[in-house]
């Protein structure tokens, strides 16, 4: 219990999210394979979502859905912030769209060049 008080759940989620952002950035900057760079982007994306969700957490809060457990009159004191959750919902979908476009670029480059290594794609035209 004391451990939980020192490291509340939102702090754990926040730290995991920040670590994921760093790992993803490292992947995007150091890897030369395009698929790995896209994986790095996805990791960063997920890390940012985790950071946003953890910032919206309110101590002792539950999911922002009014039901038997959360009466409407008391909702203000019982739920976590719905705004970051809604923002993350949007961000997940946008991230998915961006990843799909990146992957289709990778497919196109592979078809044109026969390689996924970014070092071999130095010409601007081809």
């Amino acid at each position, binding site marked *: 219990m004391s451990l939980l008080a020192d490291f509340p759940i939102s*702090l754990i989620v926040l730290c995991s999210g920040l670590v994921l952002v760093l790992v993803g950035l490292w992947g995007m900057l150091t890897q030369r394979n395009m698929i790995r760079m896209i994986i790095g982007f996805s990791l960063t994306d997920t890390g940012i979502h985790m950071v946003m969700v953890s910032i919206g957490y309110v101590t002792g809060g539950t999911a922002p*859905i*009014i039901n038997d457990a959360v009466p409407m009159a008391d909702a203000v004191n019982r739920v976590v912030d719905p705004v970051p*959750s809604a923002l993350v919902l949007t961000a997940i979908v946008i991230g998915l769209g961006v990843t799909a476009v990146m992957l289709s670029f990778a497919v196109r480059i592979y078809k044109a060049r*026969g390689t996924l290594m970014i070092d071999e794609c130095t010409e601007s035209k081809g």
Partner: protein
Amino acid sequence: MIKRIFIFMMLALMAVVFFNLATNYTENTELSKLGHYYADNGPRELGAPNLVTAVVVTYRGLDTLGEVTVLFISAAGVGLLLRRTRRKEDDEDLEQGDREEETAGVHKPASEIVETATELLLPMVILFGIYVFLNGHLSPGGGFQGGAIIASGTMFLLLALPESHISRLMIAVIESLSGFSYVIVGVLGVVLAGGFLDNRIMDLGAYGTLFSAGAIPLIYVFVGLKVGFELSAVLDRFRKEDTGPL
């Protein structure tokens, strides 16, 4: 080498920033002002028990329309990048042999177990997706989640029965119609209620039932259909490029 050091330094600096963020983090003990307003007035004003849905569909409905637009543009971009018009000379490269081999591998028919399981499970997956977006205002879920579940059903179909045909015309028609209806519902909000995408154009209904919260279920049906078919089209594009006849 210089580049490596530079990357390492940048990551180290980021780590310092993040470390400061994490050590100075204190958990919120109460909602932000905006969150407080939404939690206080959302269920009463809009009749939607799920506050995230209330924020996504109504309070921030315009942002969601933008989000759907971004998804549409990315699906269109994928469609454009992976379109199948290929000139003859492209096919004469060394990959030809590989591709034939690949295609031959994919066209091996699925076993009877896989086929039967697909026929049994696919309707359930689709039904679950529909359930999730119809109940988006009552329970965790909504148009995007339901749409993603429907797209996972398409993924399932494409993996289990790679030769199955998905009508591109049907996808285009349903997607355009639902996107169009979404905007129409939004404009009706301006005419009949308080503003663009206001859900009170319809009767709010009995709180907590399926047909309640005004236009929210209607909007989520359109969003769910649009997202589901859009993602299905994206998956279909990724398949066609690899296995389709040239």
